[in-house]
């Protein structure tokens, strides 16, 4: 009986292997469907999703996929699907070796595409590779908004992938004169790695008129740049009855994670946190207080 079972398994395995071969072929034929302009966009998008590794198998397939991405006459959603497929394939570094050069060259072309979503994605992919071309374009756009390929907040976000990207002066300019709130926030996030920006972040952390998100960025930046100041100011916030519950919760989370043990001896602070833990704040904020108290001894 065992012998028969083995034979059955073997036959089943053979059928599955045939299906393997069929599946492998279908990746190539999926790519063929995806690059076929006579098919509907929906069919092509679905097909391109099946095709990632097929581009690694022949230069012809790779070029077909890149042509879809480059071709401004193609529907945008199909071009985005081609980009996604290439991006997925790029994770298979060794297999993708033969494709990388053409892929990067195409991304640089698409970085200046008329379609904003394609531009943004291409620039994002390049910026994360610390590509000089992308950085140059993004910086030019910050200096000259007429030449901007993406909004300033996006440019700052992408430039933050490389601390060496020469973006600090542009970020400071935006903090001083922000075109919008998002840009200001991204500029501050970028400046959180600038050692000379600690005084700015001190000021922001203590400013009750600032949004919690900005004050949280400030708290985090201060911890990176001047940790003793974070502890000092977080403490002030917790002792200040007039400050907001959400920033108190942020401060408590910061001190629970990064505070030093001496906080356990700070009776005034512990008392204040204890009051907060049983007060009228949201329950999850009060939980942060209880976590703090649990760490520092009560």
């Amino acid at each position, binding site marked *: 009986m065992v012998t028969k079972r083995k034979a059955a398994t073997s036959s089943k395995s053979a059928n599955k292997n045939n299906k393997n071969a069929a*599946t492998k072929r279908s990746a190539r034929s999926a790519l063929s469907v995806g690059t076929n302009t006579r098919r509907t966009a929906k069919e092509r998008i*679905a097909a391109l999703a099946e095709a990632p590794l097929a581009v690694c198998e022949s230069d012809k397939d790779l070029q077909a996929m890149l042509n879809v991405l480059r071709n401004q006459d193609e529907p945008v959603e199909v071009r985005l699907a081609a980009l996604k497929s290439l991006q997925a*394939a790029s994770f298979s570094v060794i297999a993708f070796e033969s494709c990388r050069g053409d892929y990067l060259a195409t991304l640089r072309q698409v970085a200046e595409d008329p379609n904003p979503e394609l531009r943004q994605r291409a620039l994002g992919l390049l910026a994360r590779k610390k590509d000089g071309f992308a950085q140059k374009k993004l910086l030019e756009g910050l200096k000259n908004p007429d030449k901007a390929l993406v909004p300033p907040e996006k440019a700052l976000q992408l430039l*933050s992938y490389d601390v060496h990207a020469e973006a600090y002066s542009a970020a400071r300019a935006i903090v001083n004169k922000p075109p919008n709130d998002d840009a200001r926030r991204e500029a501050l996030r970028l400046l959180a790695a600038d050692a000379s920006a600690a005084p700015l972040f001190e000021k922001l952390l203590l400013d009750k008129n600032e949004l919690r998100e900005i004050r949280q960025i400030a708290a*985090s930046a201060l911890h*990176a740049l001047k940790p003793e100041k974070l502890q000092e100011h977080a403490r002030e916030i917790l002792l200040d009855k007039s400050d907001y519950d959400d920033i108190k919760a942020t401060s408590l989370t910061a001190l629970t994670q990064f505070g030093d043990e001496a906080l356990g001896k700070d009776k005034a602070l512990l008392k204040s946190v204890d009051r907060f833990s049983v007060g009228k704040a949201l329950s999850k904020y009060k939980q942060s207080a209880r976590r703090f108290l649990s760490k520092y001894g009560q």
Partner: protein
Amino acid sequence: MDVELQINNSANPLARFVTWAPSPCRIRVTNPSGATTPTVNVTITGVSVAGGGTVVFPSGTTGSAVSRPNLKRNDRGLAVIDLQNLLGVKADGVFGSKTEQAVRAFQASRNIFVDGVVGSRTWEALTASPASASSSNSLTLPVPIDGASVPFFVAGKFGQPSVNNGDVKIEARSGTTLVGSVEVMVRIRKNATTLTPGERNRFLSAFAQLNSQGLGRFADFRNMHTDVTSPQAHGAPGFLPWHRAYLLDLERELQAIDPSVALPYWRFDQAAPNLFKPDFFGASDSLGTVQFSATNPLQFWTTDGVQGINRRPFFKTAAVPEDLLTEAQTLGLGTRYSAFRDMEGNPHGSAHASFGGSISEIDTAAKDPLFFLLHCNVDRLWAKWQRQNRRFDSAQADSFHNSGRNPIGHNLSDTMWPWNGITGGQRPPTAPGGAMAASPCVSAPGPTPSVRDCLDYHGVVNASSQMGFDYDDVSV
């Protein structure tokens, strides 16, 4: 009388964690007062709190059929007890007529040659039998009072993992008297969307501590996964084993902070709306900046000296990412590893490419903590495929693709960077993180794992190969 129970053969409380795989344990009498015979029968039972984990007691000296001796009428000893427990007859350690009858009946029911002798085929059938697992939620063992240890096994009952540390107790009784107990945890990798708030918060806290705003050990994990290092782990057969080791190393570091934590997975072919919320892995604004709640410790997440996470989903996070292969499709890629590993493209690569932001490229992917949940699902899919096709044995050609032309680090016998500490040449210039983190529970895969070491993660082929993790929906 008192007994000591050691889980994973260790007195260390940090070893009291089990998975679905049998964990070797031992029991010994530490205080024989009140005992009147050289051995006492001790019954070991798992007692769970409501909603907690459940344990079972697989039989056998190894928990698998590999090293069981042949048994016949008149044999005696622990292996006979093991056999009797599996058959559901009285476990007195003596292979008598009743035991033989039970053996014959079992052999007849399984179309095995009926001779009343327990050889490898009978053992295999006994241990593969679902009945053998469910019948062992308690175990009776004769334990000598002289302090000698008696081995046994415990495993989590499939489908009933723990929620909290110690939510299942193993009690030892002599008659009705409790003589020893130990709290354990059935610690299992779960679908992130099923975590309780407590599990979620403990995981986030441990992860944030590991990151420690860029100053924690997480920096090593970030540096293990960059463009420079990527050929060690991508685009060749070692992709799945390398990432399995990578996740395990990270998980063990998390467990050094909080041992109750297991890495959850993001099942990317299903909607996971509560994962992408401020209290969990963050909600992305239109720019792709991830927002966390005021109490979420991930708000201080820092990598490469820069605070924050950039992640822009190209799908509605209340729904499923588009165009990813489903689990069924992924498992259907093929029964050979050479075919299955195409999953590196879709769904793995496609899952990464479902976002803009850090997770979308190799060099920056590890900056986003979601990366580890994504890869945990990739590993789960591999584990499920292994189970489906019985691909745990590296000696079996279809369990891996050892072509003889694989790049370094992608052959079965290759040790894997960075844990092997080898730098220069075809390896990256440095080896961040050092050797694989050790576990108090298991010895595998060792400090410098090879590709081969990462296949038998559950200890199916060799019990000592189990790596101390399992998935909530992958039984073996």
